[in-house]
């Protein structure tokens, strides 16, 4: 064990190894952040659509979820990175105008965003379906339209109920950014491996990454627990201890 390695300079690079890992962490968090915005928006939309009474919408929503759930994440990365630009000339034109890091970053955000959105759609659907049917009817009875019923009655309750599974999805998303290593995005895992390979300090590099991922997982857990306490509906869901 030699902690001095972290302040050692990277050969033909700028900065020490710890700065490399920190920059990797930055990419990991940035990727996860933007992917989460896509995932939450699309996931909510698809989840809601699957609880409406329009059969074709329900079927389209189900197909969407099945599509992203039944293909391994790394294969989805390859599809977005290699197959989509290879099949669609317009995308190809746009992609070659980007520099490689931008291309990897955008691909990772889109890929992880859509992959996670399918899982969130599943949570949102089950959250809405766990509400008693009377709530929807009550909304209609006081004259709300379907959109208003979702906006003011069903979704505010459903989101609160699914906060625990959403917490695990946030953590899964952050962990899944490591797979972006497969297309060469310079995120935390990429930097960890680079450090291990170049310095032969496998133990130190992997231990540092392990520690960072654990801290992220714990912080995400705390933040979500805080949100859960703040938005708890009195008397409906068990409130924090």
């Amino acid at each position, binding site marked *: 064990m030699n902690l001095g390695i972290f302040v050692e300079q990277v050969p033909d690079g700028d900065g020490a190894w710890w700065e490399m890992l920190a920059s990797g962490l930055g990419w990991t968090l940035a990727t996860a952040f933007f992917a989460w915005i896509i995932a939450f928006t699309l996931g909510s939309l698809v989840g809601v659509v699957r609880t409406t009474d329009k059969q074709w919408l329900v079927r389209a929503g189900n197909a969407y979820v*099945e*599509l992203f*759930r*039944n*293909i*391994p*994440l*790394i*294969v*989805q990365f*390859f*599809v977005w990175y*290699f*197959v989509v630009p*290879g*099949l669609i000339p317009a995308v190809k034109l746009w992609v070659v105008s980007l520099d490689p890091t931008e291309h990897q970053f955008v691909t990772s955000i889109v890929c992880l965003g859509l992959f996670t959105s399918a899982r969130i759609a599943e949570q949102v659907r089950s959250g809405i379906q766990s509400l008693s049917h009377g709530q929807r009817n009550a909304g209609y009875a006081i004259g709300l339209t379907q959109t208003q019923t979702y906006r003011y009655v069903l979704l505010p309750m459903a989101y609160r109920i699914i906060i625990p599974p959403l917490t695990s999805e946030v*953590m899964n998303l952050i*962990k*899944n*950014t*490591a*797979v972006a*290593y*497969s297309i060469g995005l310079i995120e935390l*895992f990429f930097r*960890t*491996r680079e450090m*291990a390979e170049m310095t032969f300090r*496998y133990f130190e590099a*992997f231990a540092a*990454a*392990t520690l960072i*991922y*654990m801290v*992220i*997982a*714990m912080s995400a857990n705390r933040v979500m627990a805080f949100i859960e306490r703040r938005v708890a509906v009195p008397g409906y869901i068990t409130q924090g201890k």
Partner: protein
Amino acid sequence: MGDLDFDVIGRSLPYLLKGLQYTLQLTLTAALGGTVFGTLLAMARLSSFKPLALVAAGYVNLMRSLPLLLVIFWFYFLVPVLVQSMLGWERPPQIGAERSAYITFIMFEAAYFCEIMRAGIQSIPRGQIGAAYAVGLTYWQAMKLVILPQAFRNMLPVLLTQSIILFQDVSLVSLLNVTDFVGAAVKIAQRDSRIVEMYLFVAVAYFVLCYTLSYMMKLLQRRIAIVH
């Protein structure tokens, strides 16, 4: 689009099937091994002997907070070193990524199967274990004859869902240059410069396989559900 050549799939099919065979072997081994170790871990987590429960919980939480990819690389580099120090050899053995992956996935999945089995064991009314003790069974007998068979049956759908996720996760070993299904496709794609065709084929193949598996699982679930 004009210059796509899907014949490459037919030409390389035997090689791809060999990769798929490795994927399936690894999935099955890890699912079985993970269930066994996961069940033991779950029993440890529920143990009234606090240090044991704490160690088990620490292991499970550690594994669950790390990306699988990091765990794969940890084991790939640690297992030879550990074997070396345990057996007192002079040099670390050449284990290779193909074989170390078996250990990795068993150990990693054990953490996830542990949480499933823990929920399963806790779903059995506490009175049953009291009843088992009352008729004179020991702890192991009570677990083997009363609690675990019911826990397994209750949790079978979740265990199978986790196994399908595992089947997909195994594809990450391709990043260690292992020739699993994805690894085989990557190698052919690069050798023949048929990247678009190969990756498209792998995506479709996985979709068909996983969709069929989860559909069969739904049918099974309906058959084995315990009627209350």
